């Protein structure tokens, strides 16, 4: 503490903590640019959206803002009474609860494979697995639409060889969501794989060697060394994947436009339609906050059920 400055200040300022505030100031200056950006581009819009969700902002209000009315919780009650909301919620949960674990399992499997000792071409394998993640989804969707084609698609051709005939992947309400899940898993597992590889490489080799000396089988080593040591990584991967998957949008948007029979309409797609197709921005904002609550709830549940060490 700069004693001289403090003495000078003391007579003018009744309280001595003025100086402390000044001392904290440099820190604030360092974070100020980031805080300003967050306030302007994140906090501001979020607060505006909360406000919007309590109004009936729509096409008419777009032409003349005074045409927007305060409606309280009416948007929320309306959305909760809308069967399409519940269907979109079911679809989203279906996608997240089936696709999420599948993606994490695929990432872990690929990471173990790529990380295995004695494997050649590790770099190439990693690049190949990671490639789908960095490919534009629209390009991916075009290719996958061919793969899923009921008549000349590769997938049906292969299934035909094992005696399964003609699944209309994207046209049948029962198969459209599995088709989307399969594509999303393939597209996204590469990123999680990289994180898992990093986690695997952090496990000290000595542990495995010691266990092997004690006669532990490869599966026992996987079960009792790899999994517990990887738990924090896996927890991160699961949470991030779930948050991403609950916001499912692009895949159905480019592949099925939410159909057939609304079987692939996710919450975000439903919100997008309300907001940018019918231009009912108030309703869309309400859906956004319901989705936010859902994601927070999910993350809290995941924290609760994860082993203590992982969190």
């Amino acid at each position: 503490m700069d004693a001289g400055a403090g003495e000078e200040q003391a007579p003018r300022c009744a309280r001595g903590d003025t100086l402390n505030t000044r001392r904290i100031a440099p820190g604030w200056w360092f974070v100020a640019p980031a805080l300003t950006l967050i306030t302007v581009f994140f906090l501001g819009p979020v607060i505006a959206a909360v406000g919007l969700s309590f109004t009936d902002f729509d096409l008419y209000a777009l032409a003349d803002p005074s045409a927007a009315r305060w409606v309280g919780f009416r948007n929320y009650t309306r959305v909760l009474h809308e069967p399409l909301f519940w269907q979109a919620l079911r679809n989203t949960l279906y996608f997240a609860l089936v696709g999420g674990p599948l993606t994490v399992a695929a990432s872990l499997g690929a990471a173990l494979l790529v990380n295995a000792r004695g494997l050649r071409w590790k770099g190439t394998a990693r690049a190949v697995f990671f490639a789908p993640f960095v490919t534009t989804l629209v390009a991916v969707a075009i290719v996958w639409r061919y793969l899923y084609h009921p008549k000349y698609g590769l997938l049906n051709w292969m299934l035909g060889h094992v005696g399964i005939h003609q699944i209309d992947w994207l046209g049948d309400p029962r198969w459209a969501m599995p088709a989307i899940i399969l594509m999303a898993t393939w597209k996204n597992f590469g990123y999680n794989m990289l994180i898992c590889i990093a986690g695997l490489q952090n496990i000290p080799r000595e542990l495995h060697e010691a266990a092997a000396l004690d006669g532990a089988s490869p599966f026992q080593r996987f079960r009792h060394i790899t999994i517990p040591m990887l738990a924090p990584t896996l927890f991160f991967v699961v949470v991030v994947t779930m948050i991403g998957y609950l916001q499912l949008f692009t895949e159905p948007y480019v592949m099925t436009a939410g159909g057939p029979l609304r079987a692939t309409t996710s919450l975000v797609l439903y919100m997008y339609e309300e907001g940018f197709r019918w231009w009912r921005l108030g309703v869309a904002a309400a859906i956004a906050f319901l989705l936010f609550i859902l994601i927070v709830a999910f993350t809290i549940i995941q924290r609760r059920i994860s082993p203590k060490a992982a969190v």
Partner: protein
Amino acid sequence: MALAVLCGSCARANGNDTELRVWAFGSEGEALAPIAREFERANPGIRVRVQAIPWTAAHEKLLTAYVGGALPDVAQLGNTWIPEFAALNALEPLDAYVARDTLLVPRSDYFPGVLATNVVDSVLYGVPWYVDTRVMFYRTDLLSKAGITSPPTTWAAWRDAMAKVKKVQPPGSYPALLPVNEWAQPVIFGMQAGAQLLSDHGTHGAFRDPKFRRGFEFYVSLFRDSLAPALANTQISNVFQEFAAGRTAMYITGPWNVGEFKKRLPVSLQNAWMTAPLPGPDSIGVSTAGGSSIVIMRGSAKKSAAWKFVTYMSDPMRQAKFYETTGDLPARRSAWETPKLANDPYLAAFRVQLGRVAPTPAVPEIELIVQLVAQAAERAVRGRQTIDEALESLDAEVDAVLEKRRWMLERGKSRPLVALGATP
């Protein structure tokens, strides 16, 4: 303005050129570029920058551009969108322009039902560019096998024809195909029976009206009597195959399928299909008045150049040529006199039908309302609700959608709809 001139100069033109920004959608957007080049040659000093936007993104792009003040000078607009953009005050009223150039854009040369879709509150906001309506595509061989010599023109004759055709079809087939997720069919039957769809200047649903109920009942009865399958168009993997196999003999659809049928039906069947105007309650009935118009944006600073471009695209010969490149049906009746259009047997039905089209009410909410009609019709078809229950809940849903419009009218921010239901 200064910025536009600046950009005009960077597009290797000289700095004094007027640059028109034009938006068009889908294949029309792509087909417009060569026409724009011709226009530039004919009008030195005006440069046209055409931006082709996919249909799926069109509506949203227009609205975001409106919010951001980045609308083009001229745009193609699906004619059901006109009331919406008129409500936003984004469109230039065109009555004065048309009155000045009656030779270039003569109102009487347009199909009246289609022209009416461009009028909101008695103000003209667009010039029809190409038109689109629904007619019946049918298997001539199956109909004659069933002893029907000419396509039916009344509901009673149609129903009778369906019953007869069903007997000569492969077992388990349905004579008609009316996909249950399409709004056009239930709306068409209602309008054929004389329904206005909305009442009180477009502020309330009028679907319990006996006229609409009559059309709706006819529609639902086709499914209940197994004359049409309760399938959505996503459930029908290949309509051309179904048609070729005789599992469908009559299909209500639009002009784009003329080219598709020519291309996709087997050669052996090419002489076994034809188009016919839609049957109505007592004689040929009305159909939808679809299509696209060309509009000038109110915010444009180059309206006289923009109008020049609109008149250029409205030329009947150019419209006939546009049909050859895109298959879009011309909005001007004189364009239909050219041999290509006049001699095509498949187009004759469209020409008759276009003289009998009815516009849907000119309210901004109409797109959502017709979707609700399709959903109510599907509930009735699938037996989840009776006809009266479906219509009652439809009216309630539509009234809820129009609540804001009622409030706006009371507030005096929007004038009542005079043009409502202005049928030819």
